[in-house]
């Protein structure tokens, strides 16, 4: 191994050590280094989440959870994006998601029901409540159209 190659390898090793150390100490995301904070915080007794609901032609409201319908978004990704939005952005997000849902349904990419509109709710849950329990509150944030 030549001296020059050894220098290159040492440079890479030191960059990895320093970059990751900086991310851990600062607690900040320093792409491509990270403090890897996933699931690290203890949950509060209540937590805010989002519901995406579709309104069918017959007026019935259905929960939407299919990632195929909202491709390329994953559920956790949508939650993260919606949590940062203000009212106008949420309205635009509802419009975009409904358009995406319908376009992909018509293209045969998912088998969801045809929708008349799409609603985004903010829902507050008691974190210790079992699934099937009702949320503590539900607030309509945006609807399209």
């Amino acid at each position, binding site marked *: 191994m030549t001296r020059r190659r*050894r220098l290159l*390898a040492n440079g890479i090793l030191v960059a990895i050590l320093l970059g990751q150390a900086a991310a851990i100490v600062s607690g900040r995301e320093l792409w491509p280094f990270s403090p890897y904070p*996933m699931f690290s915080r203890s949950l509060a007794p209540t937590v805010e989440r989002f519901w995406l609901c579709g309104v069918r032609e017959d007026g019935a409201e259905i929960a939407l959870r299919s990632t195929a319908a909202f491709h390329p978004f994953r559920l956790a990704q949508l939650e*993260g994006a919606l949590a940062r939005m203000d009212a106008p952005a949420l309205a635009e997000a509802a419009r975009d998601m409904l358009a995406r849902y319908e376009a992909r349904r018509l293209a045969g990419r998912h088998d969801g029901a045809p929708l008349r509109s799409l609603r985004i709710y903010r829902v507050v849950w008691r974190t*210790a409540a079992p699934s099937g329990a009702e949320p503590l509150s539900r607030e309509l944030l945006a609807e399209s159209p």
Partner: protein
Amino acid sequence: MRGLWERFWFLPASARSLGAARAAIALGLLAVYLPNDIAAYGSVSPVFHEPRWLPVAPESWLRAMNALWLAALALGGVGLFTRAAFAAAFLLGGYLLALDSSFGRIRHHDMAALLALGILAASRAGDALSLDALRRGGAPPPPDAEYGWPLRAIRLVLALAFLAAGIAKLRHGGLDWIASDNLQRRLLDRGRLLAPSKGLGEELARFPLLCNAVAAATVAIELLYPLALWSRRARVVLVPASLLMLLGFAAFFGPRFTTFGVLTAAWVPFDRVLRSRAAATGEPPHEKHDARHEAHQQGGA
């Protein structure tokens, strides 16, 4: 100090071992990212995009970049134009994976994959078990420090990622992360993403003491994982345990840290595997010194 550093990172290793790990990692990442349609972000409303400083290329450009990126991973896997392939995979992946993380949530496991691609781009991973080596012909190169440091660097990336995750849990959650009903509540909460649903997580949440034990084991594996860099005994326990933990995350929480699983190929003693295969088929060993170097490498300091 300098001597210790040199001995730790630059012990000679076999080109075949690095070549086998290169193929496993590149083809594994190709399988992970093949279904990822990053180009679709080109047609998503800008309200989802944050941070805005990272520009979103038009969908047709993204599609072309994604195809080139996947082709680079495939070329890296088979070892054709190996260094150029990994350099392209690192640069294109740097943009495409950052873009994927700029819509709603950071995908942490992509970071380790990107760093591994950068390491392989700087390595001589195509010197054996590659189409490049076939084109060049001749005997495989002898063991050298060139073939050891890249896999150790990828192991370091994994070790630091797990260590950071363990530290974050203690920093933000403290001992409550383990001893309270935190994990139970988290498992229940995961089922409420966007709408309530039942999942395996809810089944596990019915057993409080088991949840505490799982939480303790998770933090222990993450904090102790760096020991695997030095100790063979720790490696034998911690590396398989980390894979089980990743499977548990996928089954009970949902997120699949598949790339971490793929990068674990950097721990596989490919020399031993290749030698046993050669012995079974009656082929002569390719490198006389492999056994000695591998024993040194696997045994730890």
